[in-house]
């Protein structure tokens, strides 16, 4: 291996000096930052698009809520088949032979059909029709439950405008009644509270309420309207014309280009690339070749042009 040249950078304390007031510089910078921030805050404010509620979802896009509920019952929703850390329905994404997602384990268990649909309806339903539908569902075998719900999911997909009222006749068991009851419960505004608290007094974990919301298409339609979609540089952006998190470009960038934009393992691939790039940046001083790159780029001559003009380069 070729030896890199020894660092011959002289001690900075040996150079001639000039007056410099660090404290004054900080105070001036602080004052300037405060003025700029106050002006920006006063002129532009900050975005605060209200959070989506299940009540809003039920009112604005009930067909999507019905389809999402049916998907949870059929086990075909994103959450139901997610894998770790929510369940063991799949191994999740993999990087070659490395199943990093599986290694993380199941730490937030989610039984989608029961948690998102059956349990809240069991707690809240008082009408005989819903109670009867619940009894029929609970009395059926898992295979029968899946067959009913899957058939209803397919029928919804083929119905005009995915409208539950226009679904073709079929053997869906109690699934249509359960889905309609879920929409009625969401309309009362009580559903997110049920998900967030999980039966406890203090609701501090919003994981499950967000999972169910993200399983549907309503949240995504609102996000895409605000240019927040994954192929729209996703989480870098914020609602409205605000800068968002531009520093996440080195993550979002990879989602926009092949093969990552079409990969089933895009997340693990992109996060791995971002991690490797970060490690390279972190270890630049000790990476031969890269640690000497700035010498050849020449930007340093601009920074120290005053010194070089006086003392030569």
């Amino acid at each position, binding site marked *: 291996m070729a030896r890199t040249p020894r660092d011959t950078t002289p001690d900075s304390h040996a150079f001639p000096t000039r007056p410099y007031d660090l404290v004054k510089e900080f105070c001036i910078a602080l004052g300037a930052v405060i003025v700029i921030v106050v002006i920006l805050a006063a002129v532009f404010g900050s975005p605060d698009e209200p959070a989506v509620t299940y009540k809003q979802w039920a009112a604005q896009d009930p067909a999507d809520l019905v389809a999402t509920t049916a998907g949870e019952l059929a086990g075909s929703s994103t959450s139901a088949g997610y894998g770790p850390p929510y369940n063991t329905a799949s191994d999740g994404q993999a990087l070659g032979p490395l199943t990093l997602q599986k290694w993380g384990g199941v730490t937030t268990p989610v039984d989608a059909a029961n948690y998102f649909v059956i349990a809240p309806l069991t707690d809240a339903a008082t009408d005989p029709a819903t109670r009867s539908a619940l009894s029929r569902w609970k009395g059926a075998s898992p295979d029968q439950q899946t067959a009913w719900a899957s058939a209803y999911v397919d029928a919804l997909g083929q119905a005009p405008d995915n409208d539950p009222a226009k679904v073709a006749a079929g053997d869906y068991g109690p699934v249509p009644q359960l889905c309609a009851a879920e929409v009625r419960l969401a309309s009362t505004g009580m559903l997110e509270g049920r998900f967030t608290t999980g039966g406890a007094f203090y609701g501090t974990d919003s994981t499950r309420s967000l999972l169910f919301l993200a399983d549907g298409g309503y949240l995504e339609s609102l996000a895409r309207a605000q240019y927040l979609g994954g192929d729209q540089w996703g989480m870098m952006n914020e609602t409205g014309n605000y800068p968002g998190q531009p520093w996440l470009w080195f993550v979002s960038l990879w989602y926009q280009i092949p093969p990552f934009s079409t990969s089933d393992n895009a997340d693990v691939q992109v*996060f791995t690339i971002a991690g490797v790039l970060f490690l390279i940046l972190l270890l*630049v001083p*000790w990476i031969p070749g890269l640690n000497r790159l700035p010498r050849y780029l020449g930007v340093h001559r601009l*920074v120290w042009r*005053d010194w070089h003009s006086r003392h030569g380069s």
Partner: protein
Amino acid sequence: MTTTGDHRSRTEAPDAGNWSTGLARWIAGLVPRGQWLPGRQPAYVASWIYVFGVTTLAAMVVVIGTGILLSVRGANWWHHSAIGHFVNSLHLWSVELFLAAMTVHLWGKFFMAAWRGRRGMTWFTGVLTFAASIGTAFTGYVMQNNLDSQWISTQAKDGLNAVGVGARFNAMNFSQMVLWHVSLLPLVLGVLVVLHLLLVRRHGVVPPIGATVPDGSEEPVEMSGTATEEVR
């Protein structure tokens, strides 16, 4: 009445086994004498690029200050209070300014190869500070309790879960994100910034690439301590 022991403690050198004096000597030796807040800097410190380091620090002070104001009234205050919303706006824009200044500072130091002259750990702590800042900002975005936080957290979870991190760091768990944002990550960030500043003052500002000490300059300042790293 003065004892023999009292008299000896004032006249003899500090005991080599004394933890207190040892710690005091170690702290004093971290930075060369007179270099904690010197009144002069090397003559080559004359460029606008140097402003971005101190601007980052100043913006961080504003970020912390506005963050404390937001914390006093709780996570939802800014949604239903005009004053709270303005404080949130101050917090947002100070964060934007903080990370913008830090990014310019970081790339400026890259182009200056600022890790030269045993400054590898200065660069290392700086990049770690950048990463911790991104993490702190991210946790702030996902604890906003609005459409932004709903969307960002549900999107980010897939990447975090895919690499196994989401099993422990759950972007959709509101209370966990609040605690990381206002407690754990600021603590990490604070320690890193202190270390970074200490290393900057210890080694001084990196000289220009290829520069040599002009004839007739003073001798280097004596530095004690335990710096052992050497970047080649």
